[in-house]
């Protein structure tokens, strides 16, 4: 078997131009984790089910374990490493996850936060049912989702400049 020809790719990740040489079969998640050495994006299943590898690609939530790096040529990508505020403080979603205990082992968290930020851009004031449907492509094995829902509600309130009110049980 001949050594596979490598392809040059460029894309914008978290606002910075990056480039690299990849095999045509190199997955975007491996390009991010191994070439760019940004390990916040995780791999949980390799079959697009679990969502641990979710990144934002040209304004869409995408599972980077089933996208080739070459498909992201010229794309704008955001990963968890780009989520904090410009001054380095935690963004509303990151803060919400911490305040509402929306994470335990932390493995699903980067994908979950990336998905949640896109959800809130699409729907700034989602209902609980809309949040649950909106994150249904992301598995969490630890939290039972209830506190993730609260974390997203907390962030939505903060972004919208309203007081966070917990739904009555």
């Amino acid at each position: 078997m001949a050594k596979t020809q490598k392809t040059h790719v460029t894309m914008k990740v978290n606002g910075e131009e990056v480039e690299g040489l990849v095999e045509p079969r190199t997955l975007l998640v491996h390009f991010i984790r191994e070439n760019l050495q940004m390990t916040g994006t995780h791999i949980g299943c390799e079959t697009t089910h679990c969502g641990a590898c979710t990144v934002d690609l040209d304004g869409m939530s995408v599972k980077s374990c089933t996208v080739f790096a070459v498909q992201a040529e010229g794309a704008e990508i955001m990963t968890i490493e780009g989520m904090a505020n410009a001054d380095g403080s935690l963004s509303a979603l990151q803060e919400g996850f911490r305040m509402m205990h929306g994470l335990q082992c932390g493995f699903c968290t980067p994908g979950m936060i990336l998905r949640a930020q896109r959800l809130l851009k699409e729907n700034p004031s989602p209902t609980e049912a809309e949040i649950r449907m909106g994150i249904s492509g992301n598995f969490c094995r630890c939290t039972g989702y209830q506190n993730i829902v609260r974390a997203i509600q907390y962030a939505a309130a903060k972004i919208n400049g309203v007081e966070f009110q917990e739904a009555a049980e």
Partner: protein
Amino acid sequence: MNDMTPTREQREAKLEGMGCKRKRVEDIRFTQGKGNYVDDVKLPGMLHGDFVRSPHAHARVKSINSEEALKVPGVLAVITAETLKTVNLAWMPTLAGDVQMVLADGKVLFQNQEVAFVVATDRYAADDGINKVVVEYEALPVLVDPFKAMDADAPVLREDLAGKTTGAHGPRKHHNHVFEWTVGDKDLTDAAFKKADVTIKEMISYHRTHPSPLETCQCVCSFDKIKGELTIWGTFQAPHVIRTVVALIAKIPEHKIHVIAPDIGGGFGNKVGAYPGYICAAVASIVTGKPVKWVEDRIENLTATSFARDYHMTTEIAATKEGKVTGLRVHVLADHGAFDACADPSKWPAGFFNIVTGSYDFPTAHLAVDGIYTNKAPGGVAYRCSFRVTEAAYCIERGMDILAQKLGMDPAELRLKNFIKPEQFPYHSALGWEYDSGDYHTAMRKMMESVDYAGLRKEQAEKRAAFKRGETREIMGLGVSFFTEIVGAGPSKNCDILGIAMFDSCEIRMHPTGAGIARVGSKSQGQGHETTWAQIIATEIGIPSDDIMIEEGNTDTAPYGLGTYGSRSTPVAGAAIAMAARKIKAKAQMIAAYKLEVHEGDLEWDIDGFRVKGLPEKTMSMKDICWAAYNSVPPGMEPGLEAVSYYDPPNMTYPFGAYICVMNIDVDTGVYKVRRFYALDDCGTRINPMIIEGQVHGGLTEAFAIAMGQEIRYDDEGNVVTGSFMDFFMPTAVETPHWETDFTVTPSPHHPIGAKGVGESPNVGGVPAFSNAVNDAFSFLGSTHIQMPHDYWRNWKAAKNLGVFA
């Protein structure tokens, strides 16, 4: 006092000690993608290993040809059992006293068994290499059904055991028999059944499933040839045990093995045992002289690295006609797959299944467990459970509901009638445990009041009448579950792993400025130890929890511990932490007495320091004592402020809880709706209520998954038919019910802070609550017991079998 002096409340609050909802320390890095998990470890020159796996469930391996694979660019080595034999590692011991093939040695015994290990420069090249390894198999008859395992003509699976009539746990009755384990008084129990007014008998299966943490099992092994040292980064729930196991089987001196468990992406029992990937990566690093990473994919995780449950429990209860239980008899057929790779304390082949008398005062009981081999993946790990306790809780909680149905009694009333009474604690169970404490009636009544149990039963009766009149096709079930857990393994008198007593440990070092570090033998996989362990220390020694750093998982720095599983961290490591802190406090008191020029006995503790009795102005804070410990200790005293504690618990702890699930099922589609789930937990002293609630939510979600659909299922050829997240039920936020949590507090009398552990309770109590809800819903149609998992299809089938479509 001036206005600037903090109040007592302010001083308390500043500590963020036990009982407060302290926000987690870990979240700062996890929310920013700065966790450090095993696959994030990248070393110069690192290679990747991956497995050639068997497509067959049972076959002879005629030949393995690696020639073409070695020509693949990037492939450096192909390791087979023959390679491993040169270092005597073709087989490895399991924690259950069995042996397991590391790589197929002559035959394969389950689908996806490890056959060869391809080592290459990157994971893609390793995969290319796998596709070029040619393995010639000769298929053999496959054994899948556990009930046929001990037939006279059943295929012989374990040829390596030929002629061995005794295993690690006594005599073997058949070539596919692993062990028989019996507990209790058989004659007395048989007599109780002879005398009983009422008896029930049901075969209750707890199906095979898998812990499937979101991060799979993985490791990086790096052997330094010059120093002769092996460093392993791995997804280990018990890093010290891994170090000792490696020392014993690889013959590397234990001080030259460095095991590091970094951040772990969930464990749930999956990451306790030792797997072929670890051995192969270590051997590959020794052979190549380079670091080798092994990361399993999801299909490999679900199909090869362990499983949980697969217990088939024939359950009999004897009772008086008034509903007083008089005897319990259980026989378990335990399917262990191809190798017995349970991760139980070594002397307990069926874990603590003898907690099966549950929360009830059974005068006598008898239990027999037969372990058997089949052509399935090896394991039998405790998936969010303390060693077969979830199987036991399911067995007795289903059994009690079946008995209630036969007696025509309400299941809650039957339980209240048979609970161990508060005054009976410490209670000695018929199967040998000493329950430390409990108040079951209070918990049960609180649950019943909180959900308006009587009102729900009334609604159910109305719905049933409406169903019978043909006005609705929806049926309603109430799933009551009252569990008693047994956690905190465990006392050295009855718990060890490979001969190492199951203590745990903590070392605390206070620095001169009043901050400190505590290193603990446990290992968090999401439980939040970095947060809660500091809270225990804060309360014990009066230093803010923010000023205590917690470190776990590095065997070079942490004191020896047995790790985190079986809800043992709080009962054992938590106790060690409190005891180490108390040693710090005892020395601090001597220093304070010296500095305040009083006798030690003249001092009393006050939140964050000592004060002189009767002279509240004369105080010395712990922070100031830390400084003094490094410059002006009493004459003759060693400077410094450090302590180590190894804690051997005197007993297990026994958390308990009362759960109820309210469910509607549409009989025409089998679709269920969980209307309400209420969980009351009593885990003794509560260290961090926020984290406890989170643990309960997570455990309930896993219980929901297991009871309602999550299963590792095999077809007749031994093919895994639920081997990916496409088929293996993983609830999303949409399916997952809303959880209501509640609590009572009955502190453990023997634990230093009265805590009992909670992480696994919701799984143990949750599964029977869901299953009882489904069974309760169908019971009025004439059904006694429907096996789990209760997915839509099975519910529809149950309805069909009960004739509702006539």
